[in-house]
C-alpha cells in the first residue's frame, strides 16, 4: 500500500493497466477452448520429446522415424483413409464401452468380441451365402452376423452379472481369452474356417472373402480407401447418443448403475438392463470385428484382433462418457496406429519401441484429460 502512494499518478495508471492485461491473460487462459489448445500443445511437445529420447537412445534417427510416422499417418489421401478406417474400430468399441459404463459396467472383453465378430463375418461371407445376395445387402448381412455374435459374447457376461452378480470385469476378460483361442481353432482346422490345402504354402488362415462382401468404398474414384463403415459408425453414434440421453433405456442404465436397489424398487427391469447393456456393448465390438474383416483384412487369421479391443477400451475410458470424446480419442488412436505401423516398416523401428512410444502418448493424454476434468470441477 505504501509503495502505491509513492508512485506518481501516471505510473499508477500504467500499473493498473498492466494489472488489467495480466488479469485478462489470466482469464484468457481459463477459457476452456484456450485451455484445451494449450493442453494439446503441451501433450504433443511432451510426447514428442519423450519419443525423441527413446528413439535416440535406441540409436536410430529421429528424423527418419518421424517422417515415417507422418507418411504412415497422414502422408497421402490413401493413408488418411486407412487411419480413419482404423479409428472407426476404436470408435465402435469406445461407443459400446461408454454405453455399458452408463450402468457402471466395464466391458473390457472387446478383444474377444471382435474375434467372435470376425469369425461370424468370415463364416457368413464364405459359407453363409452372402456372396449371392444383391450388392447392397451382401456386405451388410455378415456385419449383422458379427454384431449378433458380439452381442452373444457380451450377453453371456451380462447374464452372469444380472443373474448371479459375477463381476463383469472378470467374465468379459475370460470370455475374451476364450474367443481369441476359438478364433485360433477356427483357422487351424479345415473343417472349420481354414483355407483348403491346395497350395504348397497353406497358412493357418481362412480363404479371402468374396469381393462382393467386402466393405464398399465411399469415394471409389478418389485415392482414399474410406469405406461405408464411416457412415455406419456415425449413424450408430447418433443411436448411442439418443439411447443415452433421450431413451427410457438410458434412464434405466443410469439408475441401475448408480443404485440398483432404488432402481428395482422404482420398478425398473434391473436384470434386462444389465443384460442389454453388456450385450449392446458386445455387439458394437463384434461389429468392429466384422468391419475389420470385410474392410482391410479380407482374411481371418490368428492375431486378427491384434490389440484393437484393448486400445478401444482405452478410447472408451478417455472419452469419459461423451460420444464426441469417443471420436476424438478414436481418431488419435487411429492415426497413431497407422503412423506406428509405418515407423515399423519404413524406419525399421522395432515394434516394441513403437508400442512404448504409443503408450507414452496415451498416458500423457490420459493425464492431461484428467487434469482438464479436474480444472472443470
Amino acid at each position, binding site marked *: 500500500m505504501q509503495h502505491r502512494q509513492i508512485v506518481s499518478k501516471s505510473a499508477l495508471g500504467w500499473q493498473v493497466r498492466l494489472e488489467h492485461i495480466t488479469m485478462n491473460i489470466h482469464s484468457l487462459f481459463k477459457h476452456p477452448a484456450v485451455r484445451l489448445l494449450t493442453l494439446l500443445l503441451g501433450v504433443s511437445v511432451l510426447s514428442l520429446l519423450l519419443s525423441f529420447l527413446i528413439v535416440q537412445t535406441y540409436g536410430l534417427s529421429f528424423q527418419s522415424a518421424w517422417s515415417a510416422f507422418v507418411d504412415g499417418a497422414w502422408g497421402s489421401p490413401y493413408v488418411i483413409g486407412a487411419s480413419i478406417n482404423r479409428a472407426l474400430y476404436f470408435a465402435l468399441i469406445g461407443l459400446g464401452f461408454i454405453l455399458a459404463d452408463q450402468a457402471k459396467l466395464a466391458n473390457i472383453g472387446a478383444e474377444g468380441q471382435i474375434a467372435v465378430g470376425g469369425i461370424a463375418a468370415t463364416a457368413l461371407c464364405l459359407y453363409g451365402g452372402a456372396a449371392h445376395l444383391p450388392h447392397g445387402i451382401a456386405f451388410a448381412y455378415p456385419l449383422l452376423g458379427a454384431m449378433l455374435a458380439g452381442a452373444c459374447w457380451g450377453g453371456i457376461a451380462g447374464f452372469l452379472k444380472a443373474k448371479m452378480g459375477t463381476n463383469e470385469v472378470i467374465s468379459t476378460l475370460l470370455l475374451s481369452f476364450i474367443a481369441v483361442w476359438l478364433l485360433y481353432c477356427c483357422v487351424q482346422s479345415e473343417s472349420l474356417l481354414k483355407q483348403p490345402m491346395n497350395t504348397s504354402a497353406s497358412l493357418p488362415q481362412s480363404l479371402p472373402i468374396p469381393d462382393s462382401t467386402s466393405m464398399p468404398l465411399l469415394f471409389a474414384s478418389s485415392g482414399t480407401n474410406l469405406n461405408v463403415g464411416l457412415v455406419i459408425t456415425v449413424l450408430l453414434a447418433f443411436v448411442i447418443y439418443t439411447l443415452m440421453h433421450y431413451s427410457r433405456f438410458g434412464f434405466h442404465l443410469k439408475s441401475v448403475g*448408480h443404485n440398483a*436397489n432404488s432402481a428395482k*424398487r*422404482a420398478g425398473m427391469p434391473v436384470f434386462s438392463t444389465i443384460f442389454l447393456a453388456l450385450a449392446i456393448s458386445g455387439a458394437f465390438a463384434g461389429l468392429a470385428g466384422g468391419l475389420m474383416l470385410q474392410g482391410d483384412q479380407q482374411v481371418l487369421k490368428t492375431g486378427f484382433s491384434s490389440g484393437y479391443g484393448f486400445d478401444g477400451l482405452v478410447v472408451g475410458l478417455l472419452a469419459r462418457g461423451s460420444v464426441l470424446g469417443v471420436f476424438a480419442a478414436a481418431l488419435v488412436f487411429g492415426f497413431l496406429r497407422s503412423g506406428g505401423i509405418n515407423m515399423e516398416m519404413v524406419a525399421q523401428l522395432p515394434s516394441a519401441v513403437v508400442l512404448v512410444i504409443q503408450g507414452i502418448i496415451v498416458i500423457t493424454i490420459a493425464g492431461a484429460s484428467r487434469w482438464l476434468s479436474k480444472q472443470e470441477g
Partner: protein
Amino acid sequence: MMDVDYLTSQQGSASVLSLQGIKKSFGAFQALKQISLELHAGEIHCLLGENGAGKSTLCNIIFGSLKADEGQILLQGSLFQASSPKDALHHGIAMVHQHFSLIENTTVLDNLLLGRSSGVLNRQQQASDIKNLLKELNFDIDLNVQVKDLAVGEKQRVEIIKCLIRQPKLLILDEPTAVLLPHEINALLRICQRVAERGCGILLVTHKLAEIKQVASKVSVLRSGAIVDFSDQPIQDIDRLVRSMIHKESTDGEVQLLKREVSQTRLVSPNARPLHDEVLQVNGLSYTDPSGVKKLDNVTLLVNKAEIVAIAGVEGNGQSELASILSGMLDATAGQFFVEGQDLTHASPKQLTQFGVGVIAEDRHDTGCITPMSLAENLLLNHLDRYSKFGFLNRKKLKADAEQLMHRFDVRAASSAVPFGRLSGGNQQKAVFARELTLNPLKFLLASQPTRGLDVGAVATIYNHIRDARNKGLGVLLISSELDELLAVADRILVFYRGTIIGEVHAAQANREQIGAWMAGQA
C-alpha cells in the same frame, strides 16, 4: 432436569471413572447437557435410554473418539481426557462397539494379538498368556478357528477378550445385545458379571430391561442428553426407570407439533366397520434370513381404510424385514399379504406400484432415491410409464411435472436439475413423499422411519402428509422407533418384539409405560 449432585457426592474409595458436568454440542444441537456419573470398581453400571438420547456420544467421549466441550473426566481419581481411542486403551479404558472390528479371514488368536505386539511377536508366549486368562474367566473358545466361522455371539466374545487381555480398569459395552440371540445374551451377561468380579468397572449401554434386571448394580437413565434418573436398586425401581426413560416433558416446544390430531375414523371401533374395509391384510408372514435367524415370526395384522396403523419397537425386531417384504424387495419365507383382497405376496415392486402401494423406504439412500441423479429424475423415478412413448422419454414434460411437484410439495431446491444428493434431508424426504403420494392409483402407503434425521419443520410437513393420506381414505402402515411419533400420528399401535407382535393398543388408550414395556419384551 433432575439434580444429580447426590451422585457426585457419594464418591467411594474405588472410583474407576467419574464424569463431572460433561457437555457436548454438535452445532446448535446439544447432545449432552451436564452429565455427571460415577462408576466404581466391580460394579456394572447400566446406561438406559432411547435412541438418540446421547448414550453413544457419552461413550465416545469417554473412549476418546469425541472431545467434551465442557466438564472433566476423572480416571481413578486423576484428571484424564483420552485424546484418542489408542490413548484410552493405553490408560485402561476398553470399549466393545456395536459393530465388530474383527478381521474375518484370520484366526481368533491372530485377531487377539493384533495391535498387541511391537517389534518381534512372541506368539507362543502371548498365546499361553491368553489361554490362562481364558481359563481364569472360564471362557470356552477355540483360538485357532477362523473368525468368519464363528457365530455372532462368539465374535462378540472375541471382541470382549480383545479388550480383556489389555487388563482394563473400565470396560464400555455399547448396546452389546442388539445383535445377539437370547441364549447368547445370557452368556454375555454372565461374562460381564465374571469380569466385574475381577474388579473391572463396566458401563453397559442398553435399552433392554431384562438385562438390567439380571446384572445391573446401578442404573442411570439418559434422556435428551441429560441424566434424569438414577437407581442403585434397579430391580425394585424398574418401573420408575422405564417411565423416566420415555417420559417427555410437556413444556417442550415440539410437543405442540406432535399433538394428536383426532380423526373421525379413529373413533369408530373396528367391529363397527363394514366388512371388506381392510386395505392391507397380512396373514402369518414369516421370514428367516439366510443365516437361519427368524427375523419375522408369523405376523398377522390388518390395516383398514382411512387408518394409520403404527408399528413400534426397538429397531432390529423385524420391522425392516416386514417393510422389505411389503415393498417387494424381499421374499417372505411363509405367509401372504393382500392389498384390497389381491394376493401380492410375491409381486414385484413394479406390480406393487401399479396396484397402488406407495412406499417410503426406511433407508432413503439405499432404496428410496438415486442421489447422483437429478431431483426431477428422482421425483418421477417410478412414474416413467407416463413419460415414455416408443422407448423415448419426454424429458420436457418430465421436467415440467417435476417442477409442479416441487411447488406442490414445497421441495426447495435451486432447480429440478440439481443432483438429489445436494438436497437437505427434509427436502429429500418431501420429494420422496411427493413421488409416492402422487401414484395413481394409490391405495396403501407404507412409511418406514419417515422422519429419521429430519429437522422439526420437515417433520411437521411429513406428519401432515401422512394424516392427509389417511383422511383421503388411504390405509397407512407407519413403522417407527420414535414413540412420540407413533403417539402423535397413529390410530392404532402394534409393538414388535423379536419378529412378533407382542402388543396392540388403540392410540387413544395408549400409554408410554405399557408400550415401553412391550418394546422391552415384557408382555
